[in-house]
């Protein structure tokens, strides 16, 4: 009996079946559920690391120590982990080491749409690209075997649709893995120059062997359909090509796309009339195909047709391919002769349906995400929006502070950038406008601060730059769906953990002015910022208030109500943009079901017309 699994669940399952004993990650969409699912397996020591670099270093250490290890991250996380990634290629492994990168074409939840397949090429590691959940499981298993057989970390790359898409999966039992007992091997593991030079040569030799494997790997296969068109594809892009063309094309379906199987590709290309490379984002496969230098009858197509930016879907692929196919053949593709050996698994191409002009999109009011009712970030951004300051933002729910009506953010760059970028901006202000009170305020969440904000703060303290840092300490890694972190007091397993002390940490870094405020008290927030602005040195404000969705710290408070008799209809309260407040006719109403009683709206009312339910109904108690 098959079960429906997301690609992320299937990766965790496949690694578990392969006998993985250690797993580490920093949460990041679309990769987070890999470790959340891994944590359900008792045989695996699973942990949240503070960032992707420490996660990969830990996984490499575990591998060298003798247990199969997996490390997962989102695409931009691999930038953070790039240093150990390149080194791990030289050290090789002891027990298998698999690194999962979950890329996000379309930027569903990311600051860019980089294509991490190039990391495999740059770090000279084998690259596996599953195209559905079954392959995610199978490839994860295979990755551990490859890792040990070729003494290399393996990069397993999924994209949002594979990571989050669910499809039926057949599971298998767990097989315990054994690795050789650890032995000190300085000639491999101590990467001083004298060791690194010969290791580079070994890595190159390994690539040659891996390429030979790729030529005959069952992960790389040819699916014969009509030979008029040969599609080279990998990952979810293969599924879109199949959806569009069905058996009207043949496919070189690459599960292992680096090192590229040159001979297999040559053989495939020689047996089809025209080659089209269908892939999302960069021309990674296309460059490998073109590098073969094959003399072809029709020009090889790829990014000449398929968009370089954004996420693909079936319709985009259909619209991209249709004109070129019609031109090349002088007739619609659907009239191709019956495929020679399409088995029971064949699909009917949807090219005709997909490229038909559809309905136009209906223009309706947008539904962007917004701060939740009772969110501790609301009051901070309400106050920041009223100040003439540069706000250096960061990655987390609080990036919503850039949205109207707050619009209180100047930059949002990468995980942890706010403080160091703020330092630089403040320095520019100091150079260009000496003596002026203009200030830079960096805003960063607790988890992001631990991830890579701490080092920027150390820079600010060390170099005495007067950037003000507000740490939004909501006691959880909220945006990715409530993962624990070093400040939350719990580990991934749910067990209690040592709780990092933010204020003490900040002081130890060298920050002398540290203020802790209740972000639900606007006056306190305002006062703390004013005090910080009055001091020339770097300082920190810790806004300590739990995420509204964090049940274990939820405080039951009475909902607020608008007293319509005294309300002047000025609508100032709407500037806090709370989902509990809505306009009905001329009146502002508060939905008692949605309101959690945080009271921010009542603090911006100048007429004392918003009061907690009991007080409004029955007077004082």
């Amino acid at each position, binding site marked *: 009996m098959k*079960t*429906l699994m997301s690609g992320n669940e299937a990766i965790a399952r496949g690694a578990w079946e392969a006998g993985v004993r250690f797993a580490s990650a920093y949460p990041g*969409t*679309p990769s*987070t559920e890999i470790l959340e699912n891994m944590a359900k397996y008792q045989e695996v020591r699973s942990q949240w690391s503070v960032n992707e670099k420490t996660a990969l270093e830990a996984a490499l250490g575990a591998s060298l120590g003798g247990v199969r290890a997996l490390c997962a991250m989102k695409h931009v996380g691999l930038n953070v982990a790039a240093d150990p990634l390149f080194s791990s290629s030289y050290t090789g492994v002891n027990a298998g080491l698999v690194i999962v990168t979950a890329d996000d074409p379309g930027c*569903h*939840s990311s600051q860019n749409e980089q294509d991490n397949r190039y990391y495999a090429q740059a770090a000279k590691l084998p690259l596996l690209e599953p195209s559905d959940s079954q392959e995610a499981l199978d490839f994860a298993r295979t990755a551990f075997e490859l890792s040990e057989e070729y003494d290399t970390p393996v990069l397993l790359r999924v994209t*949002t649709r*594979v990571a*989050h*898409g*669910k*499809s*039926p999966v057949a599971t298998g039992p767990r097989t315990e893995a054994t690795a050789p007992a650890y032995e000190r091997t300085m000639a491999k593991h101590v990467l001083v120059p004298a060791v690194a030079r010969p290791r580079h040569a070994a890595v190159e030799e390994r690539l040659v062997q891996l390429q030979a494997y790729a030529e005959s790997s069952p992960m790389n296969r040819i699916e014969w359909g009509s030979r008029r068109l040969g599609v080279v594809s990998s990952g*979810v892009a293969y*599924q*879109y090509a*199949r*959806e569009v063309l069905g058996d009207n094309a043949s496919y070189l379906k690459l599960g292992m796309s680096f090192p590229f199987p040159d001979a297999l590709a040559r053989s495939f290309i020689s047996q089809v009339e025209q080659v089209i490379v269908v892939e999302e984002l960069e021309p990674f496969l296309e460059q490998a195909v073109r590098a073969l230098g094959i003399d072809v009858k029709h020009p090889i197509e790829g990014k000449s047709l398929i968009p370089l930016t954004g996420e693909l*879907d*079936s*319709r985009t692929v*259909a619209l991209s391919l249709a004109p070129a196919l019609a031109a090349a053949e002088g007739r619609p593709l659907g009239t191709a002769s019956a495929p020679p050996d399409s088995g029971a*698994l*064949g*699909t*009917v191409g*949807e090219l005709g*349906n*997909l490229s038909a002009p*559809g*309905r*136009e*999109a*209906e223009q*309706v*009011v*947008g*539904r*962007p*995400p*917004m*701060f*939740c009712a009772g969110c501790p970030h609301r009051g901070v951004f309400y106050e920041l929006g009223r100040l003439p300051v540069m706000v250096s933002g960061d990655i987390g*729910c609080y990036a*919503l502070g850039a*949205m*109207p*009506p707050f619009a209180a953010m100047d930059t949002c760059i990468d995980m942890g950038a706010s403080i160091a970028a703020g330092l630089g901006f403040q320095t520019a202000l100091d150079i260009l406008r000496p003596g002026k009170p203009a200030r830079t305020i960096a805003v960063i969440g607790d988890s992001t601060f631990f991830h890579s904000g701490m080092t920027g703060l150390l820079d600010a303290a060390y170099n005495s730059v007067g950037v003000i840092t507000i740490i939004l300490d909501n006691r959880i890694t909220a945006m990715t*769906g409530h993962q624990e972190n070093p400040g939350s007091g719990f580990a991934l397993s749910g067990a209690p953990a040592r709780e990092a002390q933010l204020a003490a940490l900040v002081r130890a870094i060298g920050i002398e002015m540290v203020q802790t405020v209740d972000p639900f008290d606007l006056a306190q927030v305002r006062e703390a910022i004013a005090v910080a602005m009055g001091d020339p040195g770097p300082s920190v404000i810790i806004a300590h208030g739990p995420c509204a*969705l964090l049940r274990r710290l939820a405080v039951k408070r009475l909902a607020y109500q608008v007293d319509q008799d005294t309300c002047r209809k000025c*609508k100032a309260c*709407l*500037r806090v*943009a*709370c*989902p509990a*407040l*809505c*306009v009905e006719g001329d009146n502002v109403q508060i939905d008692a079901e949605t309101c959690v009683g945080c009271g921010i709206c009542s603090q911006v009312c100048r007429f004392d017309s918003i009061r907690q339910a009991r007080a409004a109904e029955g007077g004082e108690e």
Partner: protein
Amino acid sequence: MSETTNAMLVGVGGQGTILASRVLAQLLLDAGFDVKMSEVHGMAQRGGSVTTHVRFGRRVAAPTISPGQAHFILAFECMEAARHSHYLREDGVIIANTRRIPSLPILIGREAYPDDIANRLAGRGVDVRWLDASAVAAGLGNVRVENTVLLGAFSTFLAFPEDAWKQALRTVIPAKHIELNLAAFAAGRRLTQQ
């Protein structure tokens, strides 16, 4: 002719679209279909639109439904029905809840909730079956089961026996909530059976 059936479930974070799509996927898996289901996580919990794509057939390739490809759209909210209507095939059907949930631009007074959605869709020849699933759910004592009411209404458009749906509900929904959900499902079926 397509051999894959495409259904989209669209709504607002917190409305239970994902649970409803899990029941649907379970039903399809039990019936022996190849199924692909796709949802985008991220900031859905923060009041944004939530969209789940469910595709089933003998062999399903693409994980997502493209514009113009959906046989059915089950809309949990009025504005979301309109927002996703271009995903519908010419002969497709939208089963839509009349519930209106204001979004950020409406809440902060910059936009008004559109009053003419039903007319606009009808004017363009979109086949929409409007239902007040929230009222039916409230009548059963818990507005949160509007998702199961909608699923019940949708169930009459697919050729699966009612018992298969009930089995899928029992598999997915925790035992302590199952009776209420079975009642909601039955009430939903009555809305579209006449």
